[in-house]
């Protein structure tokens, strides 16, 4: 079987990851619903994971994939804690619109 990077090339994966990361960043800037912002953060994390796997294949080294494994674990922990915080915010303010969270503003 021919190798994936010989057929496709690393640059295509770089472009794909950059576009996906930019879409995630756009989501964080554009939306004000906190859950959608969480999903955008997940998209950004996935873009970086995809690029790590691509370079792990380029260098033929397993360590990139181990890093992806760890970053998935961190993403899972982040989502669990973040959603718990969102639930608690929703209980206190009745909405998850981030523009309502101005209590810490001086």
């Amino acid at each position, binding site marked *: 079987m021919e190798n994936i990077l010989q057929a496709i090339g690393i640059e295509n994966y770089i472009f794909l990851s950059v*576009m996906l990361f930019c879409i995630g960043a756009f989501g964080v800037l554009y939306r004000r619903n906190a859950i959608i912002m969480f999903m955008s953060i997940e998209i950004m994390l996935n873009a970086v994971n*995809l690029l790590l796997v691509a370079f792990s294949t380029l260098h033929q080294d*397993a360590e990139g994939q181990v890093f992806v494994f760890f970053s998935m674990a961190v993403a899972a922990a982040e989502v669990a804690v973040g959603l*718990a915080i969102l*639930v*608690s915010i929703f209980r206190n303010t009745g909405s998850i619109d981030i523009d309502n969270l101005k209590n810490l503003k001086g």
Partner: protein
Amino acid sequence: MSLLTIFYILAAVTLATGFMTVISKNPIHSAIYLVLCFFSIGGHYLLFNAQFLALVHIIVYAGAIMVLILFTIMLMNLNKENEPIKSIASVLAAVVAFALLCFVMLAVFIKAMPQIENYQSSGQDYQSIKVLGKVLLNEYMVPFEFVSILLLVAMIGAVLLSKKQKTVE
């Protein structure tokens, strides 16, 4: 169908569903599009022949994280399109920032591209589950254990945070 065609189809699905996640008004639709996006990224991992990561990705993201997000959306009863419209200025600022970020990152990577040499496959096995397990449990033993502690702490923290707080009167 060549690998390049499969790649282009998967990449189009990934980008389109990612964009739909960001712009759809209903959070439930966003979550469904995000699941599709995660599945297509899992397809990319399968194209790389990274079987372990493809499985873990599907289980963790499409299984655990999306179920968590969907349950939260339903718990907060957010499945209606009641998001207030942002002001034109902030939407414009977001679009300009997105375009600039895209431009800068693409420019950087295009500029850096000639330094990436041609790819040669050495034919050795470096990403099967067997090899990854050996690397994970020999060289990365301590971080692996720390990740388990991190997940435990995150679980306890999530339970404590979302527990109903008793008022102190």
